[in-house]
């Protein structure tokens, strides 16, 4: 099968790859590079577990061709923080009991980050936060503690993170 060369910037690191044109960013992250923080489920942009940041904005990596990311910056959950140095959102999700099975959580946290950066400079309302995460399904939590966690970070940081 044909492979085309592609350089991707992922979590600040440049990756020189050979990709098949139909490979999605999610496939490349999980199977080629070995970053499994972006999760796999519906593959049709309905569940949001595959969410990553593309030029700072939350996108579904399952329906984005890797080739569409040429020259753009990709951040996955692995690029946000580590166990030793958690991002404020990661810390808040733990503190507020927002994590159960955790499979949607990387996508939730990145969606929240993108949204808070978008509303930077003001504190979004709880309803706005509720709306902002509506593209990411969580089956465990009923969303309430996730919203608590995001609202707490929003209040601490005035939006942007």
């Amino acid at each position, binding site marked *: 099968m044909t492979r085309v060369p592609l350089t991707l910037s992922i979590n600040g690191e440049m990756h020189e790859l050979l990709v098949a044109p139909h490979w999605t960013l999610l496939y490349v992250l*999980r199977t080629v590079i070995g*970053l*499994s*923080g*972006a*999760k*796999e*489920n*519906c*593959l*049709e942009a*309905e*569940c949001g*577990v595959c969410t990553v940041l593309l030029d700072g904005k939350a996108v579904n990596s399952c329906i984005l061709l890797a080739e569409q990311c040429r020259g753009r910056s990709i951040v*996955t*959950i*692995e690029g*946000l*923080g*580590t*166990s030793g140095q*958690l991002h404020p959102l*990661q*810390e808040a*999700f*733990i*503190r507020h*009991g927002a*994590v*159960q*099975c*955790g*499979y*949607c*959580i*990387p996508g939730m*946290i990145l969606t929240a980050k993108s949204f808070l950066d978008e509303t930077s400079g003001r504190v979004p309302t709880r309803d706005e936060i*509720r*709306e902002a*995460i*509506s*593209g*990411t*399904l*969580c*089956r*465990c*939590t*009923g*969303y*309430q*503690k*996730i*919203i608590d966690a995001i609202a707490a970070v929003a209040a601490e940081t005035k939006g942007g993170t």
Partner: protein
Amino acid sequence: MRANRNLVAGQRLPRLDGAPKVTGRFVYGADFALPGTLYGKVLRSQVPHARIVRIDTGRARAMPGVRAVITAADIPATRFGNAIKDQTVFATDTIRFLGHPLAAIAATSVEAAEQALAAIEVEVEALPALYDPEAALASGAPLLHRDWHDYVALPFISRDGNVAGRTRMHGGDVAAAFAQAHRVYENRFTTALQHAGYTEPRAASAAWDGGDTLTVWTNAQLPFEVQTTLADILGMPTSRIRVIVPGVGGGFGGKLRIGVEHFAALLARQCGRPVKMVTTSEEELIAAHPRQAAIITLKTGVDRDGRILARQGRVIVDCGAYSGSGPGTGAVALQCLVGPYRTPNLEMESLAVYTNKVPSGSFRAPSGPMANFAVESQMDMIADDLGIDPLELRLRNIVRDGDTGPAGEVLRAVSIEECLRRAADAIGWHDRRPAPGRGKGIACSWWMTTGGSSGVYLKLNTDGSVNLASGAVELGTAALTGAAQVLAEQLTLDLEDIRIAPVDTQSTPYDYGAQGSRTAFSVGNACIAAAEDLRRQAFAVVARHLGLPADEMRLQGKCVVAGEHRVPLSEVARLSQLGGGGLIAHGTAINPPPAYDAARVENHPLPVWNTPSFHAHAADLSVDRDTGEITIHRYVVVQDVGYAINPTYIEGQIEGGVSQGLGQALSEEIVYSDGRVLNANLTDYKMPTSLDVPPIESILVECPSQAGPYGAKGVGEPPCIEPPATVANAIAAATGLWVTSLPITAEKVLLSLRKEYPQAVDHRDSARD
């Protein structure tokens, strides 16, 4: 809640696996892959019921990248199953549902495997199909399992043709009581197939070591059941099958029964390489283990004051093509259909019935929501008809401490009155119809804490920490964090001092599994027993070391205290390693069922409920009279948890359970037409989004049990039981009518308001208050 004197148990501590989960480092079953793995895919039938004429895999075998192809012809036709061994790995001669596995392929990529699937030629001859369980019960209906009589089944199960299980509970004289009743009400309720909706698809990786030992990494809820099922299928001793559970991205009962492990194991054996399988959303919706659709008829006789004289009910659960969890699910519906009400005369029957649809499973509180939807909707209809407040009607009928339950058991730690009153207070019951089109509803129930045994091993480490090895899987509920809190409390440790070992059937002790609201309860109890063992051994080590009597020692502040001496547990571990091979402790637990009257129950796997919990829910919602749209403003749950081991995660269970229950109430259904699923994708299978779930207020009641750790009762399943009934009753308060078919979509509401929908009970012309 009562004052909590414990330092670790009962505290709102963060879960032990939080950091790896929020940083994306936690490895789930779907993430796990072995080096050099192949990828497996299953060919599934495109027709619901047919005789297989021919399956030709010749072209597929020759396709690039294909390394293994298996059909029924390649393996023994061993039957397996949970209650009834009625399934084979692949359809042998008969296809019984659309989605039935016909073949499996392993290839170097998912894509190559999918292309090869498309190259398999299948020729079939259609058979007349049955989609409606009532039609399957009719005399003269075709038998879906001609050999049903030869199937091996658990001894208590009563079967007959298309009936995979029949259970009865009875007491008193129902006919006489109906004859004397002031009023008799009879209603019919229907509910839909609901997928468990875990966000992580089912996944498994399998590898063979030298040909006779298999290791499977899977996101299963019951690794020990996977092990014995694989042993059945592969004809191998269980000890040669090792099942390891990496992480699980939600289960809710949907990952109880075997998923794709057997396909991975068979393919890996054939090609001598590791094989990984992950299901697609389409496979999940056409061929996983959803909650059964049910048809419930309920007849209730009451006196002038609304006191229940008799109840007669019949529950039909649609098992689909194979029995799965159907017989047990049908059976437990009966206790739920009686409800937490004094019922002097009762006659309840459940039937689990085969049809040509997806084999169903046991989703969280398996038949609880369906039975509760029936009984609690009807309680409100009765209240409305008699002109009695629905809360008052319930208070007149609820069970009290010392009453007998449906199986004749004595009920203890009964808290239903407190739950009802507090839920009513919290929702503002005095103002039940605050505005036109707005109404408040209430519903209550009881539920069991499932029994089954648990074992744990503890290993004391030289840094003073303790490894906890349990065969119970952490599904995400934080039940293992809860058990660890109990353990830490017992050993005077901090929660962070407990390390939870990954589940591995080779090294972790047996556990009946992460199911039935039992994990924190039962593993917690095993931890208490193991802590006692660890203390005993630690005291013996210190006694030998210091020459002091062990019976005067105690644990305090992570130390063994003996008179003036304080020996840290880290030192105990070191001493034990020097002279005793290290310190390993063991504990087990089982919660025996209470005594009951066997004459009242027939063919029931769980004839009497262990350590029941009690709960009440209330909702405040609006109905858009022009579109039928429902908007829930507030939702209140009052749940008796016995003792809140970790209030944060109990609230998490409540909030998540309510969300799933609201999905069942309002939007979720796997829709079949002529044996085909019309919505096999997450665009049209509608689970609640963040905008669909209202603010949920959790109120925890602690009426301690005699059996659970610190008085705890089972917590996980109950929150999804009452939402459908609560919503139905609130809609009725707002509109004067009950929709008796789940999900209660906006379409059904609007058509009911216009008298264009038959499955509704309309009291608008006779409303009394």
